[in-house]
């Protein structure tokens, strides 16, 4: 990146409807050479440009092991995400990144992994889940358990992964829950934090990685602490309004940390050091 503010031209090749307000965009760079130095790591984010509208920071939801393309799952919340949702396959966008830090996948080697996600919060986790499950990486990690919930069955993202792929991978378990009972749903009903307490995974040799709506994260963090997970093994990601993504525009700071360059991934131990402005 000789100019960190200038995006790479890219093209949307496929759009998948995940939920009524979430779509996943498969994007390839117009210049295939970009991929070789893009080299993102699970947990990192990128800025997607819709030219004429602006940019939004979106976590990369595809694992770097899936070479040649990037996936972003985008919830429609504002002007830019709204514009993105109106695009069709073949549309041109810009990609700027990879930005920020990543999940400490090296440090996690040899450990069991517990993923706890809610709603669109599964998107950044998915990059790491697939990274861990893909190819020979799998051998470096222990059990993989995924607890995931959404408001309703329709609001579950990545249904193909949840129902058809991950549960069939060796050493992998998927626990699903939805907030309220509904017809045709035979699975668990209830909020993610209480489901987590129900399942009550052992903190031994295990990392917990969580992402979801702020309220969920708050209760998941306290549940994990109750279960005995040490702060150094609880990992979450933060979301702040970002513009430049490279630590200059000044709006995503929490204390003296910039979420865009020092985050979005934080250990709970780090979070506890930060002022409560997120």
């Amino acid at each position, binding site marked *: 990146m000789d100019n960190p503010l200038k995006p790479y031209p890219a093209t949307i090749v496929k759009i998948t409807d995940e939920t009524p307000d979430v779509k996943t965009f498969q994007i390839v760079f117009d210049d295939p050479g970009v991929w070789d130095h893009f080299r993102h790591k699970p947990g990192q984010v990128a800025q997607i440009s819709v030219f004429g509208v602006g940019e939004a920071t979106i976590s990369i939801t595809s694992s770097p092991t899936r070479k040649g393309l990037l996936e972003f799952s985008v919830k429609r919340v504002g002007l830019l995400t709204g514009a993105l949702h109106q695009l*069709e396959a073949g*549309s041109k966008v810009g990609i700027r990144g990879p930005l920020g830090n990543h999940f400490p996948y090296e440090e996690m080697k040899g450990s069991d992994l517990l993923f706890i996600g809610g709603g669109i919060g599964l998107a950044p986790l998915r990059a790491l889940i697939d990274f861990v499950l893909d190819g020979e990486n799998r051998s470096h990690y222990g059990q993989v358990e995924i607890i995931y919930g959404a408001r309703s069955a329709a609001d579950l993202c990545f249904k193909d992964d949840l129902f058809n792929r991950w549960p069939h991978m060796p050493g992998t378990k998927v626990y699903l829950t939805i907030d309220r009972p509904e017809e045709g749903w035979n699975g668990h009903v209830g909020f993610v934090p209480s489901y987590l307490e129900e399942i009550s995974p052992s903190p031994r040799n295990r990392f917990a990685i969580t992402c979801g709506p702020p309220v969920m994260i708050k209760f998941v963090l306290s549940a994990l602490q109750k279960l005995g997970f040490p702060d150094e093994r609880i990992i979450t990601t933060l979301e702040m309004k970002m513009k430049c993504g490279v630590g200059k525009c000044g709006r995503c700071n929490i204390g003296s940390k910039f979420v865009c360059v020092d985050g979005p991934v934080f250990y709970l131990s780090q979070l506890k050091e930060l002022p409560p402005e997120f």
Partner: protein
Amino acid sequence: MKRIGVFVCWCGTNIGGVVDVPQVAKAASSFPGVVLATDYKYMCSEPGQELIVQAIREHRLTRVVVAACTPRLHENTFRKTLERAGLNPYLLEIANIREQCAWAHQKQPGRATEKAISLVRRAVAKASRLEPLFASTIPVTRKALVIGGGIAGMQAALDIADAGHQVILVEREPTIGGKMAMLDKTFPTLDCSACICTPKMVAVAQHPSITLYTYAEVEKVEGYVGNFEVTIRQKARSVDHTKCTGCGTCWEKCPTRVPSEFEQGLGTRKAIYVSFPQAVPNKPVIDRRHCRYFAAGKCRVCEKVCPTGAIDYQQGDQLIKEKVGAIVMATGYDLFEWEKVYGEYGYGRYPNVITSLQFERLINASGPTGGKILRPSDGKEPQSVVFVKCVGSRDPAKGKEYCSRICCMYTAKHAHQVLEKLPGARVYVFYMDVRTAGKAYEEFYLRTLQDGAHYIRGRVSKIYPEGDRLIVRGVDTLLGRQVEVGADLVVLATAVVPSRGAAELARLVGISCDQNDFYTEAHPKLRPVEANTAGIFLAGACQGPKDIPDTVAQASAAAAKVCALFSREEMAAEPTVAQVNQFLCYGCLECQKVCPYRAIEPVTVSENAAGKKIERTVASVNSGLCQGCGACTVACKPGAINLKGFSNEQVLAEVDALCL
């Protein structure tokens, strides 16, 4: 991106003969969002529309631009086309390249093409900002309120009731009938007014679908078209009408006499009274202001004589709530108070200067003189009667600027009546112009002239007494000289003004008045019987001076409008209405002040602000009342109130596109 299809119409040679249509289509194909741009000979024709339907399906179009004639012509046509293709009809934008381009720039085909491209660019820009709109429906209470029980109100009530709907008729006087009941004869046919008016009154009273509230006033009107909630104040009559038989003993025995309103002060009535013998209802009320018992605490004569024990001094005002779907305003007129400004006519000090309405009573067989023309001062038959027209009308200096429309004809009628009843009497009419637009009106006027009435063209400058007579001084502008006429009786054709309290009632009901307090119609040409507030209609002189046939016609027209509204249980509301973004609204309610339809009301919303639950006031639009003018959108600083179909975003995008 929105998938926009652009369809450019040749309109035969109308457009195609000037504008290079294929070039317009070609240019349009490069506009952002346009996935298809094509042209056809006649877009509005069946095959043209079919072409659009097919294209919408085939190209998965989400917005449609038709470049053709003015949207005022075929917007609805093409909206239906979109609907046929399964697209929301409001996802259409028309570029007017015929009336406003091809036809206007026939001599400059090159520039016309350039302009057409620009107009299509505008339409595309707007189209890409269009959102689907849905007509909402409002339930309609099929019951009408008619305010005013004169001929207008009665006619409207009867027509609506005859169509099978419930009607509530509110009249503030103790009887219905209004001014028409006071009249002697009607021009130009000289029918007996009472003979045609009183049967209507009876018909109203007896109609099973009409609920009559006399001696009652409308106190409050809430709600909106189809769903008004009206509060009516039934003033205390002090007589229990369920017991009263209308035998008349009470008013015979009542010791108090007061000038009669119905007789225009020329006769008297009692403190307990019915306005006139044919009053409907024919049951009395006590005028508490004048009743001895209410004034001095003694008397109770009526109570003593009443055979049914109907007198109830304790009776209080009653508030009645009614739900109605439509309101007809039929509040009629009053006469201009000439006494206050016409000093030269004696400020009302001369008993023999009377108004035309007083003259009607004077000449009426049921009036105070039994139909004899006797002058009020001494009861003598006048030998010389002077009529002065335009007293307060067409007189911006002292009275009203407008023409009262009925005076020319009734003065002719009065002149005729004087000459008929008092053979040998002289009749002078001072006039500015004689206006006789109406069937058989001019003929009637000419007959009066033949009868011997002297018409003098000019204003009267002074009336003064001389002995027991009056001298009327004026100018005969045709002869160019001053004239003085001795008169035993002077009749002033005073201006017609809205009935007392009309303006306050307008505010209460939520309609607007013109500068003279006549109610304003929604459109002077095309919507003459509708008020500017949906669901409120106008009948008769409350909207402007008019004679009986016009009044009756307007009343029936208003009734027809009400019946049209009542023809369905629900009415569709245009979806191009204002809408409030409550987050942005800060509750200044400036929008409410500029809304001509009272469509905006404050509502309270509660929300969380920095962890605290707070309540705030924001504006809210009643889409049933909103007519989509957009005045509120400009009054709103933060752009919190926006107009669907003409939103800020859309107009700005159009401006941007036109300037490219």
